[in-house]
């Protein structure tokens, strides 16, 4: 149980793919022009992460060390291609927006990283959980980044969410009417700026938590 908790904490916060490990920067920066795009890219990556985790873990006793990287690449590119075809067929509008980036999931280091560092050593169940949590952490990070850029850049939040999630989620779409928008944030430099400030904010939170922890420890020692 505690191991599962550890995996969940790792994926969502402590070892978050974007903010902790700083992996997968290409999709992170390229697809976060809006919260909806970030969400879509994150979900697609999550599917790939879970599938590759399970498959790698299932075959971990079969795969010989010498060819393991080649086999991982083979598995991942197959999964990504399947996701690509599926989205093209049944989520066509989103595929038109993200289409260029979906094949790039193959080169998202986070997937290879989890396969090598986690899935190849663990049982399928926990590997699936790890893939899911890493994927959700990645999705949340992309959504926050996309949300910040979209809000500052054009004064909307989750614009076109109904396109991704269906009409029932149209209530998510927010819009500030008299806001001109800072175009820079939607353009590529805005991705770097927003990511930098978000990472800085996270570091500040961590630093503050550390000081607090050391302070309370100090108190405990002093009290004893």
């Amino acid at each position, binding site marked *: 149980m505690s191991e599962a908790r550890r995996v969940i904490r790792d994926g969502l916060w402590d070892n978050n793919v974007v903010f902790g490990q700083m992996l997968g920067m290409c999709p992170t920066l390229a697809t976060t022009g809006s919260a909806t795009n970030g969400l879509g890219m994150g979900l697609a990556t999550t599917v790939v992460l879970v599938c590759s985790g399970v498959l790698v873990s299932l075959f971990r006793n079969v795969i010989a060390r010498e060819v393991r990287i080649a086999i991982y690449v083979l598995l991942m590119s197959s999964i990504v291609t399947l996701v690509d075809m599926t989205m093209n067929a049944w989520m066509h509008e989103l595929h038109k927006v993200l289409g260029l980036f979906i094949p790039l999931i193959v080169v998202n280091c986070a997937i290879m990283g989890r396969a090598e560092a986690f899935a190849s050593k663990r049982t399928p169940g926990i590997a699936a959980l790890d893939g899911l949590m890493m994927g959700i952490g990645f999705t949340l990070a992309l959504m926050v980044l996309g949300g910040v850029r979209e809000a500052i850049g054009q004064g909307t939040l989750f614009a076109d969410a109904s396109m991704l999630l269906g009409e029932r989620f149209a209530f998510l779409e927010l819009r500030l009417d008299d806001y001109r*928008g*800072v*175009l*820079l944030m939607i*353009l590529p*430099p805005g991705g770097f*700026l927003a990511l930098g400030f978000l990472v800085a904010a996270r570091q500040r939170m961590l630093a503050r938590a550390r000081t607090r922890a050391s302070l309370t420890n100090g108190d405990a020692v002093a009290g004893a």
Partner: protein
Amino acid sequence: MTSWTPNRSPVAAPHVHGRTAIPQVMRTVLLALLPATATGVWLFGWPALNMIVLSIAGCVAAEAAALAIGRRALAHTLGDGSAVVTGLILALCLPPWAPWWLPLLGGAFAIVVGKQVFGGLGQNVLNPAMLARVALLVSFPLEMTAWVAPQPLFSAAAPGFLESLAITFGAVAAPDAVSAATALAPLKTGGEFAAGPALIALGLGTVPGSLGETSALALLAGGALLIARRIVPWQIPAALLGTLALLAAIFNQIDPAHYAPPLLHLLGGSALMCAFFIATDPVGAPVTPSGRLIFGAGIGALIYAIRTWGGYPEGVAFAVLLLNAATPLIDHLVRPRRYGRLRSGAPLPVIRREDGR
């Protein structure tokens, strides 16, 4: 900042202390900017003054806020005047009748993203004012290219002080009647290049353009002061303007109808402002004379390329930022020989005297 020696190569110790402190340098720069600032305010009226005040206020407030967040003493860099200089340079680069939020936002961006994020004065890789100018130009292309024709203070057409508040703070954009094209516009939209008397207007500054960049004479006066006081090395302006003029002359010779003459490139737009006040910012420029020549020539060539073939009408800000980024490389390429060493870093070869001693 400490290793910065204006007109000489860095040399080995011992050094003499130059008694030049940062606040003093900043005061001289402000003094040198005074002619251009005064001309700009006179030409474009009260709205221009509003904008200068707002831009400086934005920079100083952002500097104070950044220092407070970083828990550093406010006196640390707030008192040295560097934020004021950044604010003034930024204001002089903007359209004179810009709405109030443009200089405020630009000032804050210049200080926070351009300077404090890197660790404050002397640590910034890129020129803060130019970074803000590019950010504003990319984000608000409409406001950043809304030029007005000069309407000198106290002339009949000039807006009064109350009117100027409406222009700066009002939601209404400047009326079409006063909007105008800059001297560089024919480079992109086609049409006649300025020549003859129009070039004299460019020299005096009585043309549409950025607040403080229209008057070549005022900028030259300030630049002369900076070079005479040895605040800026002469190599950067010389190489920058020389390269720009040379390229313009070559292409103008090839096809005069298509490529603007060198004088238009030098006098129109931001080239002079850039050559004396922006590219010479010691923080982002190389430290050796030869490095500065390369740096200036690079900016001049890029300005010409962007103006002639690029997507934006003026390339000064982009050129400065790109060469700022290349500065460590330039410094590495032309680093001076260490005393007692070869250029490669190996010790000097020992030469045996023939007389056997």
